[in-house]
């Protein structure tokens, strides 16, 4: 059999493979984003950016163990205005490699989403990913907009009106029925859905008798999240027909194949960067190609949605 084709099309963009760097992993530095594109990330999502500069939470902000990662970085970002030149620079470097840039945004209030989107649009990213699901700022911002179909739809409407770029809405796993929220945002014009963000969680150090993170709670990612993410994507794929960026706990090419089978068009790669470093993309690509070859899949389209039927 011939080498399987990993290239795929996503909202009119042509990607060399389905792997996308997930938002927040290694921030927004042009050199780091470029480094991951060189390693094989077919698209790059930048760290979520909001209206104002934020330093993020004090240390500890991350712990990792064999089942996953807990983080509460706290949406560290330079603020939308200062982010624009950074994204421009990143976009330019990525464009040279044929890699699209997805710019992630968030806002504390509904009204701000439109404004942040408009500012970030100046950097001309290929897509705006709308983070309505960061679990690590609830004490400041209140319940995330991902909590209900209504609030998720309201944010989508606001961003949809503000910009002409493709938008993907990033959903949270801690809801009773994620497919209803997916339907609501698609009805408001979301071009894609990114699922999922981290799951709100906490680790306590028994000897210290204290939560490990300074923010006390954090977001769970990595292997422990995979079964949750697969289930969310599986449910969303049955409810809507827009493409899904399936994200959560993927660490191998086999994991990526499983996510595609659950109905994802692209797969987000995040916490596994801990193990391999930025070069993780080339490993996962190779593994995915090997899996496809061994199992007689000629192209990604044959893998996609296979577990749905």
């Amino acid at each position, binding site marked *: 059999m011939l080498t399987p084709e990993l290239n795929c099309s996503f909202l009119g963009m042509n990607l060399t493979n389905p792997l996308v760097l997930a938002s927040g992993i*290694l921030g927004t530095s042009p050199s780091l984003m470029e*480094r991951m594109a060189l390693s094989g990330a077919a698209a790059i999502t930048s760290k979520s950016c909001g209206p104002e500069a934020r330093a*993020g939470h004090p*240390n*500890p902000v991350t*712990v*990792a163990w064999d089942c996953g990662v807990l*983080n509460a970085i706290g949406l560290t970002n330079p603020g939308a205005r200062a982010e624009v030149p950074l994204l421009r620079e990143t976009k330019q470097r990525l464009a040279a490699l044929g890699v699209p840039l997805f710019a992630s945004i968030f806002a504390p209030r509904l009204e701000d989403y439109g404004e942040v989107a408009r500012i970030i649009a100046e950097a001309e990213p290929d897509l705006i990913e709308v983070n309505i699901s960061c679990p690590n700022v609830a004490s400041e911002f209140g319940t995330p907009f991902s909590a209900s179909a209504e609030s998720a739809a309201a944010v989508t409407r606001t961003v949809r009106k503000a910009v002409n770029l493709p938008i993907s809405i990033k959903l949270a796993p801690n809801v009773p029925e994620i497919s209803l929220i997916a339907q609501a945002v698609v009805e408001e014009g979301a071009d894609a859905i990114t699922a999922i963000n981290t799951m709100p969680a906490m680790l306590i150090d028994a000897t*210290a008798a204290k939560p*490990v993170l300074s923010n006390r709670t954090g977001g769970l990612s990595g292997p422990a999240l995979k079964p949750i993410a697969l289930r969310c994507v599986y449910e969303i794929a049955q409810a809507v027909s827009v493409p899904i960026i399936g994200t959560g706990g993927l660490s191998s090419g086999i994991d990526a194949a499983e996510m595609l089978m659950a109905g994802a068009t692209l797969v987000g790669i995040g916490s596994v960067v801990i193990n391999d470093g930025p070069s993780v993309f080339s490993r996962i690509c190779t593994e995915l190609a090997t899996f496809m070859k061994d199992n007689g899949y000629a192209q990604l389209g044959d893998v996609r949605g296979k577990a749905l039927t």
Partner: protein
Amino acid sequence: MNPVGLFSAFRVQQKRTENAYTCSLVLNDSLPDALPGQFVMAWLPGIDERPFSLSDNDPVRITVADVGSFSHALNQLQPGDYLWLRGPLGRGFISRGRSHLLLGGGYGAAPLSFLAKSLCAQGNQVGVCLGARSRADLLLVEEFSSLGCQVWLATEDGSAGKQGLLTALLPEAQNALKPETVYACGPIGMLTTMAAWARTAGLPAQLSFEGVMRCGVGLCGSCELPETTCQQLGLAPGFLVCHDGPVGEISPNHFS
């Protein structure tokens, strides 16, 4: 994922005053498979968490200069107190050759003491150049001597050793030692000067960098070396101090 990612509770077994604002905390256990040059994230619950190099691992020891609120809190710890560590993290020094020159500025002496101990134990020839503002600021001088290292000193005020910057010791040390590799830890200015000298001398250099550590495991991007520094030193852009370093290796050829 990373088995070293969760905190382990240690207790301070012994506290040694190194100078007026620096102490070494000797803990009650070692870290499995820790290498010289690697670091730990030290946590005091309710206070903060910061990176420190291992200055020994048999048992764990960190050598802490009191430069701000967290390092001050560490300096207040007493034997019996708890300290939480995750690690060892990052990449350490890699011994190359049989004759080694170590260059430590300020608390940069800390990881080098662990390196010197390990190199000497393997029967290598080790020379150490230490620098500080004045005699009272020098760190671990006796420790290096008692390991059997040849030691050169420099102080800015001339109160001990040569007067001037640490890097001024390099020609003399090179002559005496004929090192095959040089290793350095200290302020970034010292590291770049050292790297420039190593290139001229045709020697490979291993430099231990600092960066603002948050995750410590290559996830958040906050410890990236500035792109200009990477360019200057011939490192690939996007160098993450916690993942690619803290020790970066620079060959004399790749320097630009």
